[in-house]
């Protein structure tokens, strides 16, 4: 156990910070043309992605030709720490960069890498991830979207839902059923679907806060024809790749939630004094106690995350990430609730933009995505109970 990283890691941090200071987009640039969905890449973001790639700062852990510098796990950690704290998004297409590209690099053909992965790494195109369906929200094995081989093509029919960024993405990393006659998880494949293919209809789903800026979508596929060459990896091997893809996502996602919790806590600490000041003394001590509980949780999230990271580096298992997902999302939600309730009626204010501010019900409701999506808290508890604790399936 130790509090500080090796000095070489800290030097890496400094190197990145120096580069960042010289190359980051300005706050004005970003504010003038904000990203309004998780697959929307405004002009400044395209330039920024390319600049990161060229300098080897897009995915430092990868080799230089893929936008990296062969950084180790600790270097990647401090890179992500600083990137998150900087206020500049590393990417405006997190699932594209975090899941789709690594999956393509692992399983894709050279042509797929050339046509889909590299342009995404260059900030030229964005991707969305087509997993959830109306009757298969948490239950991928149950998906129904069909892909039927027809000569050199696949014909797609079906419906996806909760597809983040589908309203802006250039292509979709689509999970579909290619063999309906085998047990559920055995007949799933992944196909790359250009979103401008005829037969693709995207319907944005407005959210309960800032409905002006939808990010989730329904995607309807009616006799959509894509080249057979768009199949990723082996036919009917989608289940295994899905687990690989999500593992990519989980690898460092915990850190994002640590930073998000800490930034939320920072906002709460800025907000709290004036709110507490206005309360009668007896209420103040109790409200302060709630703030302290959040403060402790924000540290607990960090400590638990770094502990899991240390285990991962030593070859620990991925299911521990379920613990972080469960904990970090719940803690951040609690923080949002405490801050909003403490603030009083002003918490009902609403701003017409996607940015979250602690101390508003907009922040509170907005945060629910994190306990529902990407494996709900209930799913995480199942995983922990079965995979980590060895309890039998019910």
């Amino acid at each position, binding site marked *: 156990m130790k509090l500080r990283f090796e000095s070489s890691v800290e030097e890496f941090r400094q190197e990145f910070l120096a580069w960042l200071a010289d190359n980051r987009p300005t706050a004005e640039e970003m504010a003038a043309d904000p990203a309004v969905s998780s697959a929307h890449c405004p002009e400044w973001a395209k330039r920024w992605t390319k600049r990161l790639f060229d300098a080897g700062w897009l995915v430092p852990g990868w080799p230089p030709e893929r936008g990296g510098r062969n950084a180790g796990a600790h270097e990647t950690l401090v890179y992500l720490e600083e990137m998150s704290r900087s206020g500049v998004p590393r990417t405006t297409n997190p699932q594209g960069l975090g899941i789709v590209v690594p999956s393509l690099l692992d399983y894709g053909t050279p042509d797929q890498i050339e046509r889909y992965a590299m342009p995404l790494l260059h900030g030229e195109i964005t991707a969305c991830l087509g997993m959830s369906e109306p009757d298969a929200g948490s239950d991928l094995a149950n998906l129904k979207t069909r892909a039927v081989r027809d000569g050199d093509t696949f014909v797609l029919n079906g419906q996806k839902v909760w597809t983040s960024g589908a309203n802006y993405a250039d292509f979709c990393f689509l999970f579909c059923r290619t063999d309906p006659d085998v047990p559920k998880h055995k007949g799933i494949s992944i196909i790359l679907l250009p979103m401008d293919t005829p037969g693709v209809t995207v319907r944005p789903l407005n959210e309960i806060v800032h409905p002006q800026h939808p990010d989730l979508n329904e995607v309807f596929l009616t006799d959509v024809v894509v080249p057979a060459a768009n199949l990723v990896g082996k036919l009917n091997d989608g289940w295994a790749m899905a687990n690989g893809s999500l593992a990519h996502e989980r690898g460092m996602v915990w850190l994002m939630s640590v930073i998000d919790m800490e930034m939320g806590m920072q906002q709460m600490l800025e907000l709290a004094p004036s709110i507490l000041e206005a309360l009668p003394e*007896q209420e103040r001590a*109790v409200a302060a106690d709630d703030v302290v509980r959040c403060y402790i949780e924000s540290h607990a999230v960090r400590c638990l995350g770094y502990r899991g990271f240390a285990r991962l580096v030593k070859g620990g298992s991925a299911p521990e990430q379920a613990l972080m997902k469960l904990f970090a999302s719940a803690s951040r939600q609690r923080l949002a609730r405490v801050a909003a*309730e403490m603030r009083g009626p002003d918490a009902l204010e609403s701003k017409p933009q996607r940015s979250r501010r602690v101390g508003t019900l907009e922040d509170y409701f907005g945060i629910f995505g994190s306990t529902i*999506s990407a494996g709900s808290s209930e799913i995480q508890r199942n995983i922990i109970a079965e995979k980590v604790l060895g309890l039998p399936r019910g």
Partner: protein
Amino acid sequence: MDLELSDDQQMLRDNIRTVLTGACPPSLVRAVHEGTSDGAELWHQVVDLGWPALGIREEAGGVGLGFVEVALLAEELGRAAAPGPLLATISQFVPVLEEFDCIDLLAEVAEGRRSGSLAVAEGSSWGLHSISTVAEVTADGARITGRKDAVLAGSQVDSFAVVARDRTSGQLGVYLVERSAATVIPTGALEPTLGLADVVFDGAPAVVLAAAGVEAALERVLQQATTAMTLHIIGACRRVFELTLDYAKIRVQYDRVIGSFQALKHRFADMYLMVEKANALGYFAAVAIAENDPRRAEASHMAKATAGECQRLLVEDGLQLHGGIGYTWENDLHFWLKRAKAGELLCGSSLHHRSQLAAALGLISEVNV
């Protein structure tokens, strides 16, 4: 102690619910949320039904029912997430007029010619302490200067019962100001159907309802406002519960309806318990107020504090167990989530009411009221 509805109360409740099912469907709530309706038609309908008159004494043309019945109406308005000035009128404005025997004004409300709300809170605190709005008595009434925050239905009512301090005597009094004489700044954009507003008075002409010695009466009014809001929250929470329970009975995941998963079943049991216990305390407060029992202050604190716990659990689990669908604007669930949550922020937080209780029990020194 009997906390079940009497047959008459049951009938009244069923009647209210039936009416609101027709007159205030989710489509109306949606229209107000989306800015395509101001909900005025609902107000006209409830006026035709005589609902504003429910708790008004018969002498002033009212129905003369007690506070339990008013609370039941407040609960049903929450269950319907109803927009408009009815809640404020029956649970804040009428109690003020009743306390100060304003027969003429009561008659106007009974006839549906006037709606109103209580303008008391300054800042986010609830109660009579630190009121700095002032009243200057004039030949024909008074002039009010100051700012009131988060007035319920502030942008929807005709008039405000303003609690202000006489500039000369320093005494608290209650003054009637027409909305047209005040500057109304709509707030609470996330829950627009409640019509919350900050209200600024800049020498606004006012009628004096009572110029001094109003504290005890106002405490009774605050208890009614608080308890009505409590039942209102519970009505919204019960709706969230029912919607979530219904959804869990049809939503299939892993080849089973999700309501058959034991972990969810246990959470439903806990949610049900929470709603039932909040409701029981809410009714206890209502009947304590109706019977003017000495426990009415304590009961209203306990009930609002518990409604706070209730909305916390029901909003959170209701949304969580709906999954993504409850997160979409096109699903109706959010009307009640937002209503329940807003209720916590109004008429004193659960913390505020627990703190009042702690002082009343002598556990901490008296809160500066």
